[in-house]
């Protein structure tokens, strides 16, 4: 019975589908439409391995970033090393940029397959092509939305970037893993067979693709890698440009907090076992500490500042928070999903985590979160709440 069902399924998958009439086989569908001797299984395999590697790196670092921001109960993100997130997210964005020439070259190398004849030999063939369509469309979707996002061109995306980029990544990587399973024998065969006659040309193409990736990297990666900042002529950020010499992701005007943040009646509320209400002067009178920490943006840039303020663990002690407590920092800003963030217990304990009042020797600029902001090691900038109005101790 089982065997018969299996046979039926295999039979169904491989039963020939009727081919379209031959007279429709025109233009790119002709057998001799594509003639470049550069295309080969070996070239496609090598590009595929490189591209698959970049997508894997992007997926792992991306899921990590998502996990840090929306931690499942089993996930804990440490507060050290302080620069870890700056590296993982810098790698995420830089690798995504490198993937652009790889994807384009890979698609060129298999472009004739788009015009295969007949378009579907059997059901198995049709399914395989459908999975490639998901992979190609998903890959283009991820790279396009990623670049639009670091270019901050949100209007070009008629949806919320983060949700789309995250879930389409799962679908794309799923299709990628299926694709690897389908093509594995071809890749093994192509790489075992060794070089062919046009090897110099193939190496030349690979060199050109590598050069493209290199130029793109040199022109952008200085947004997080300081030694290359001077030549980063296409970087979305410059680590030295901004109020107090540090870039800003969202200005006070954009967040519509200008009046609230400047209000002389501003008080910080801390909700805990012994709630407290503090003026900014009172906060400044508490023991102050200075730390050197980066702002590491989800957009892949990072810049180091010298922050001065009150240790979060001192504030927790002030309101009698139990050991192991977490803290929700709420902004004066309202109406978006980025108005509050929960600091994990490890970050609350860390002496580097501050409620900062000053940056690089001067009171915080309004755009950096005046009257006070959270600054913590090894966290995305989006979780380092600015214009803090309320702190809530969570058990």
């Amino acid at each position, binding site marked *: 019975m089982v065997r018969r069902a299996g046979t039926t399924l295999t039979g169904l998958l491989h039963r020939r589908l009727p081919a379209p009439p031959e007279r429709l086989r025109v233009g790119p569908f002709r057998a001799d439409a*594509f*003639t*470049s*001797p550069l*295309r080969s*299984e070996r070239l496609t395999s090598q590009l595929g391995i490189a591209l698959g590697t970049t997508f894997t790196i992007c997926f792992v670092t991306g899921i990590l970033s998502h996990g840090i921001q929306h931690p499942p109960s089993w996930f804990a993100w440490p507060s050290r090393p302080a620069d870890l997130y700056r590296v993982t997210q810098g790698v995420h964005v830089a690798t995504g940029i490198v993937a*652009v*020439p790889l994807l*384009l070259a890979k698609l*060129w190398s298999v*472009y*004739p397959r788009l015009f295969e004849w007949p378009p579907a030999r059997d059901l198995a063939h049709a399914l395989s092509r459908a999975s490639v369509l998901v992979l190609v469309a*998903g890959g*283009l*979707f991820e790279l*396009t*939305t990623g*670049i639009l996002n670091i*270019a*901050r*061109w949100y*209007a070009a995306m008629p*949806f*919320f970037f983060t949700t789309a980029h995250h*879930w*389409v990544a*799962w679908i794309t*990587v*799923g299709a990628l*893993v*299926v*694709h*690897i*399973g389908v093509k*594995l*024998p071809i890749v093994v065969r192509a790489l075992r067979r060794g070089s062919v006659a*046009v090897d*110099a*040309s193939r190496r*030349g193409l690979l*060199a*050109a693709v590598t*050069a*493209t990736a290199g*130029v*793109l990297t040199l*022109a952008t990666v200085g947004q997080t890698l300081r030694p290359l900042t001077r030549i980063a*002529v*296409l970087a*979305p*950020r*410059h680590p030295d*440009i901004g*109020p107090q010499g540090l*870039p*800003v992701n*969202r*200005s006070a*005007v954009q967040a519509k907090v200008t009046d609230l943040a400047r209000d002389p009646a501003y008080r910080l509320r801390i909700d805990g076992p012994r709630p407290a209400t503090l003026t900014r002067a009172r906060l400044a009178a508490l023991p102050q500490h200075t730390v050197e920490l980066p702002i590491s943006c989800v957009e892949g840039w990072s810049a180091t500042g010298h922050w001065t303020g009150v240790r979060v663990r001192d504030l927790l002690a002030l309101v009698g928070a139990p050991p192991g407590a977490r803290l929700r920092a709420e902004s004066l800003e309202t109406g978006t999903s980025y108005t509050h963030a929960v600091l994990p217990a490890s970050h609350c304990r860390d002496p580097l985590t501050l409620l900062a009042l000053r940056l690089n020797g001067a009171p915080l600029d309004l*755009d950096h979160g005046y009257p006070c902001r959270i600054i913590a090691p090894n966290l995305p900038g989006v979780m380092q709440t600015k214009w803090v109005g309320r702190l809530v101790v969570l058990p």
Partner: protein
Amino acid sequence: VKAIRVLLGVFGVAAAVYGVANLVLTGPPPVVIGRYVIFAAVADVAHDLLLAPLALVAGALLARLAPAWLRGVLRAGLLVSAVVTLVAFPFVLHRGYHPSNPSALPLDYARGLLVTLAAVWLGTAVAAAVRYVQCGHGHGEHGGAGAAPAAGLPDGDRRDPGLGQGP
């Protein structure tokens, strides 16, 4: 190998189903998911029917117009230029700029693109000079300049009968 392939298939389908299920169950309303599909389809069609054919036409022109010794270097220069321009395009347009936040997109990206392209073509010219010295006129496929020979994206070695047919 067969077992590995089956495992890959199972994991891949599971990941994709996980993505689709979460999108449908916890994600935005169907209208918005429809926009994902449209966006992906537009990106796909723009590549398949616009970008790729343009590259093929450029390659065919190159094969017809450029001398063989120069072809590979020229292709490489064109490939780098085209992809860099494509990636820089949203920055040059500067649509993400907000006057209240001058530190986001703080540079002149049109200038940045021109500077990058100038550097690319300087490099291309140097590579071409090296090729010229190495191969002299008309014998493009000889010699072994590591980075330069016969590189490039597009189709079109139609006129090089010695190289055989593509897939």
